[in-house]
């Protein structure tokens, strides 16, 4: 298999397989999670200002007082790479073209030089966050194989995408194929690892906020 055949495979059957597993997993887990339901709450709900599911969705996007100082890498690094990933995935023109090709939806993108800069910052933030995880004893203790695995799954598409665009190390065709393959691996594993938080984060925040709001506790 030469480079162009490899690229054609990842653009064709590879993409088909990856998207299929991704969709299967996402639908399976979303339906399973949201159909769990909860017991009817027979108590009269309490009312406290600032206590609701929607409040919690917003509140948990902001660091609690003092925490940025206590754990700057987690908060600042975490923010940077999440926002960076969103910009790269959703505002790089070739990515928008792919989404348009798959769904028909499209929107304006950013100039590729801007995305290049964002990519560098994102890669750096991800490396810093990883080093911090390894260096801090508590974080290291809490980390499992899954944490390192999902970090790698997220890091590789960004790295290979940057190398492909910049024509570094490998011929563009091969690097582009590796980039698409790494993104497909991410799609395959996303529904079955903690990366699924991409889908559940706001739902679970709302759930926690709502259940505590009924007890009169703004969380």
């Amino acid at each position: 298999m030469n480079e162009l055949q490899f690229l054609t495979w990842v653009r064709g059957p590879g993409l088909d397989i990856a998207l299929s597993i991704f969709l299967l997993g996402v639908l399976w887990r979303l339906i399973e999670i949201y159909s769990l339901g909860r017991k009817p709450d027979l108590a009269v709900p309490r009312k406290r200002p600032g206590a609701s599911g929607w409040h919690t969705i917003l509140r948990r996007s902001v660091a609690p007082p003092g925490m940025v100082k206590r754990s700057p890498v987690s908060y600042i690094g975490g923010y940077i790479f999440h926002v960076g990933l969103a910009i790269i995935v959703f505002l790089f023109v070739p990515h928008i073209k792919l989404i348009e090709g798959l769904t028909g939806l499209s929107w304006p993108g950013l100039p590729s030089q801007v995305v290049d800069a964002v990519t560098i910052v994102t890669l750096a933030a991800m490396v810093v966050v990883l080093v911090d995880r390894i260096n801090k004893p508590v974080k290291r203790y809490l980390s499992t194989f899954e944490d390192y695995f999902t970090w790698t799954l997220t890091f590789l598409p960004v790295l290979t995408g940057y190398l492909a665009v910049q024509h570094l190390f490998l011929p563009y065709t091969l690097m582009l194929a590796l980039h698409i393959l790494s993104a497909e691996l991410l799609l395959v594993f996303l529904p079955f690892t903690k990366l699924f938080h991409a889908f559940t984060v706001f739902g679970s925040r709302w759930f926690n906020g709502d259940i505590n709001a009924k007890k009169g506790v703004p969380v």
Partner: protein
Amino acid sequence: MNANGSLMHKLALQGVSRRSFLKYCATLATLMALPPTAGRAMAEALAQARRPSVIWLPFQECTGCTESITRSHSPSIESMIFDTISLDYQETLMAAAGHQAEEVLHKVVEENAGKFILIIDGSVATGLDGAYSCIAGRSNLDLLREVGPKAAAIVAVGSCAAYGGIPKAKPNPTGAVAISDIIRDKPIVNIPGCPPIPVVMTAVLAHFVTFGKLPELDRLGRPRAFYGETIHDRCYRRPFYDQGKFAKTFDDAGARQGWCLFELGCKGPVTYNACAHVKWNAQTSFPIESGHGCIGCSEPDFWDAGGFYKALSMPADPLKFVAGAAVAGAAVGVAVSIANRARKGAARAAHETATLADLEK
């Protein structure tokens, strides 16, 4: 330098001045990114060279490569070189035909064994022992096995000779393969393209005559000087790609303003060739400049790479499993939900209320 029979002498007879010959050599050297002195070395070597014997064999091909090379541009010093090397066998261009032509071929091969340059366009059919493509009653495969090992070097002109080309497209009914799949112990230079740029071929020949060896090749056996960069990197429309300005159809406002053709299926980003800077027809233009995306014709398997008009970022094939997978995912989700509810129900049913008496037991 004016020895009779030398190239310079022949050129002088045809009215080509030494000055224009030197300019031509300097251009070739520059094109191949050789040092400035190479132009002079090239001129001296070419001027003194006895005309090297060149045999051109056409296999499974469309003659497009020959058509391309005969259109080498300007009053065409290239075509003079082409006339002035001793092109001893070229079916499209030679006057001879039939048994006489075949006799010449075999005579030249024997007389110049180990010295002639063998140019081949077209792929080699291997199915049915090569019977799909024959010349003078002999299969291309047979002929290549006889002539190939006697050449000094082989120039595989066009994507068919270099990679198998269109004949190799799925399902490859003739069992087409590249020259390099049959001949493995000779220096082979691939000049892919459908067709290749004429000046690339003449430059490679000039390099061979000057230095006695093939130019530096890339991993696919292509001269690095011409196949070192992608069309996309040298494309004058590249700034539009970076700005995200794309033509949506071949005649919309974007197309008229010369915006990037990526969305219309341009394969420039994955195609290594010199079209964007060497250009065609006396540096007039190249496909993208004429408003059509690059089809990637100098890359192996461009013919089976998912369609010429599909953007590289688009799926190469229709997605076959996705709809089924979505239904399956939803079904699994519902099934697991029902199982979870059943388990909850069973747990509730099995629940026994503890009484004070139970606790005091």
